[in-house]
């Protein structure tokens, strides 16, 4: 994949076919040269080796590739890497802190909100963005927020429970702190 992106070296700096971008990825600033047509999902997966972001449909429908783009869910399979220049991207790998899981992650495990696990990273990031904005959503609000993320295994009922459970836990944590 050397032609699509590479860490910047002095020799590469003068090439014209690439664009230099700086992307914040899970809190770390990375500067890379990329082909203008490179998709953000591919930069994340092959360039940054963060394979928790999955690509499912290539058409912005399934949401498996959802990342947080400056905190807002975005489907990285139809975002160009160059569009992420100067922006902050959070992937599933940035969801947990070093020592503990995010309540959304715990919720998905506790409520059996996943089976094959392929949609799970995108689903959890969408859920996190919802809870950041709306700490006490109704079931309908959760279902509406998740409606851009497809799951073929679970039937969503346990995912909804997981998100509502995580919301309760987060409220408790924030109330206590």
């Amino acid at each position: 994949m050397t032609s699509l992106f590479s860490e910047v070296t002095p020799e590469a700096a003068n090439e014209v076919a690439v664009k230099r971008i700086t992307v914040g990825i899970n809190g770390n600033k990375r500067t890379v040269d990329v082909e203008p047509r490179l998709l953000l999902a591919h930069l994340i997966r092959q360039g940054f080796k963060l394979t928790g972001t999955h690509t499912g449909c290539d058409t912005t429908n399934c949401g498996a590739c959802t990342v947080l783009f400056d905190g807002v869910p975005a489907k990285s399979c139809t975002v160009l890497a160059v569009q992420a220049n100067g922006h902050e991207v959070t992937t599933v790998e940035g969801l947990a802190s070093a020592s503990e899981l995010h309540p959304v992650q715990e919720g998905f495990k506790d409520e059996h909100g996943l089976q094959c696990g392929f949609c799970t990273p995108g689903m959890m990031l969408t859920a996190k963005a919802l809870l950041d904005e709306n700490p006490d959503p109704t079931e309908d609000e959760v279902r509406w927020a998740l409606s851009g993320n497809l799951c073929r295994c679970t039937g969503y009922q346990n995912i909804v429970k997981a998100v509502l459970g995580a919301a309760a836990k987060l409220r408790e944590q924030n109330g206590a702190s």
Partner: protein
Amino acid sequence: MTIDEIKIGGLGASRRRVEDNRFIRGAGNYVDDIVLPGMLHMEIVRSPLAHARIKSIDVTAAWAIPGVRLVLTGEMMAARNLAWMPTLSYDTQAVLATDKVRFQGQEVAAVIADDPYIAKDACEAIIVDYEPLPAIVNPTQAMAAGAPVIRDDKENQPDNVIFDWDVGDKDGTDRAFAAADVVSELELHYPRSHPSPIETCGSIADFDRSTSKLTVYMTTQAPHIIRAAVALVAELPEHMIRIVSPDLGGGFGNKVPVYPGYVVSILASILLERPVKWIEDKTGNLISTGFGRDVYLKGQLALRKDGKILGVRMQTESDHGAFFSDAQPSKFKIGLMHSAFACYDVPTAHLTSRGFYTNKAPGGVAYRCSFRVTEAMFFQERMVQAAADDLGIDQAEIRRLNFVRDDDFPHRTPFGFLTDSGQYGKCLEMGLEAIGYEDFLKQKEEAKKNGRLLGIGISTMTEPLGAGNSREYDILGIKMFDSAELRVHMTGKAILRTGAKSQGQGHETTWAQIVAHELGIPAEDIVVEEGDTDTAPFGMGTYASRSTPVAGAAVSMVSRKIRAKARKIAAHLLEVSEEDVEWELGRFFVRSAPDLGVTIQECANAAYSNIPDGMEPGLENNAYYDPPNLTWPFACYIATVEIDPLTGVWDVLNMVAVDDCGVRINPMIVEGQIMGGLTEAYAMASMQFITFDSEGNCVGSNYMDYLLPTAWETPGFELHEVVTPCPHHPIGAKGIGECATVGGPAAFVNAVMDALQGAGVRNIDMPLLPDRVYEGLTEGRDVSGAPPIRTDA
């Protein structure tokens, strides 16, 4: 001290899943996550036409693109005798087309390059000159006189008929119909659908010249079958092939067959001596890989006035696409279609079945289905409801009247299956109570007065899960058993491997629970591995809800072998004879002195450190399990709906599921399977289908056209259980993964048709799109969904 089985994660524990620990961190390991040194990337050129002769293929411009390493066409495959491959149904399928293309999306050429972007560029640069031929998109066209012969590559194939098959008692059934008070008839089409796991298919072939070993990481639900197939197709020695199926992003039957992409990536790796990765895009997956269903029914029930079924006649015509590659292991041409009416006490039945080639994708996989039982049960339940309507009797009552009774087992079905257990009436009554049946009927009548359309639909069925037995089920001659290997280490921890392959079912969690149940070793002390043919025992893989019935039984049996050896070790440690040793969960003790005992962990330690004289050291074993029969879970699904008469849009008001899958290993996981299955049932009933226009263009080739329900549309489900243990399974379990997908659709469709009662419409084909429902309601006639569809709508 007695061990609490639930606390150690044994049978019946809703143990949280082991595999989730990596999935929730984004640390799963799916095929596309694997990167090998020096790896190249493959993309496929697909036919834009459904039926055309290939006049020429010009690959010159593709070769000229920097970074292109190899361009393969059918001609080059043919030079290595790889242009065609055998299918799982004893037909042949083109790997890369040589003479003709026979469906839209068929593989024509492949490019291997340094990265996928270059490979895609090069695919665009390949020029294929086609001479278009008329396309055939349904069986009616396929059987018409003078229809173009799709498979002119085959000798002795003068037409488009694949098979003409029948089963049952024709004469007896004719007599039953002659004696009937009423004959109820129904014609319908179960539309083509696609399993569509979110992860598409893909492979990384890695041929190592220095060892002559081929390793293929790939999306397969059946790695050992693939190894056997690769050995046959590529003529490579089987011990030099290693198939690894890593984490799978769903399967649902789609990842059972061998696809051209796998074969081409393997040849490319052998030729280039570098790893070659192929990851299919979504469109490629939807238009070229294994579909499900696409069967037409003419059904008739011979009835007594009171609703008793006297005989069943079913006539099916199935559309298999361009190659007969149904992935099913039975000797029966249309899978287990003749499991229909197994839950009813029907004296006689006859099924005729004809299969046809068309210019559509091949496949015929068991999409969350035990080989055509989804169609069988849908046909059955639609026919039963139509009969109730024709006779003017209650839809619950007709089922009560015809159910096989609890004391009638074992029961021989009209088509010859042997069902062994069930409490059908109890399940139905539980479902009716949960949905509030009588109240709803009153509500419905009240609503009708106000112009509102409410309906209730019931679907009850028992289905055969867990192929085989080996007498009747095999793939490529390999019998349908399954296997488990258990190694207990000296500290009492263990590793278990099976021949199954989880795609989300949670085997890493549940298999350990079976071992915990048999040996008393805590589930958390057991690691489960599957999917690597170099390490896993030979097995037939996971599909058709066969894992728990077959591999799960093998897990029990291997654990019991381990326990038998541990008992001898215990006798040695306790210094008594083996006959004086008793077992309780996790511990052997002296019968006459129960306080005197040794734990299974102490026995494990002794197996490596203090072995009795003359005994083979170690505590390892394996088991191959050939089930004596299929397992027969029962389900009752009841849905209530309301139709908006102005738009034809219908909403699910309530959905109740009563499932009897025997003993539940992990209730949480069982419920997850049921809810997932119900959602796919709802999907097929409401929106999800693959169809074609009259030129054979696939309508439904991406997620903008192929609609899957989201969290917003999907209704909530209320689950109930009945437990009738399977009499022949070691722990009394039955299959469950697909019951809801199989039985669910008829509940939704029956509910909508119930709401339309009196409108003059007997059937609307799935999916029940609002425009179809509106048409049925306002025009008062049946609505067919069979292709060619209207393209002006």
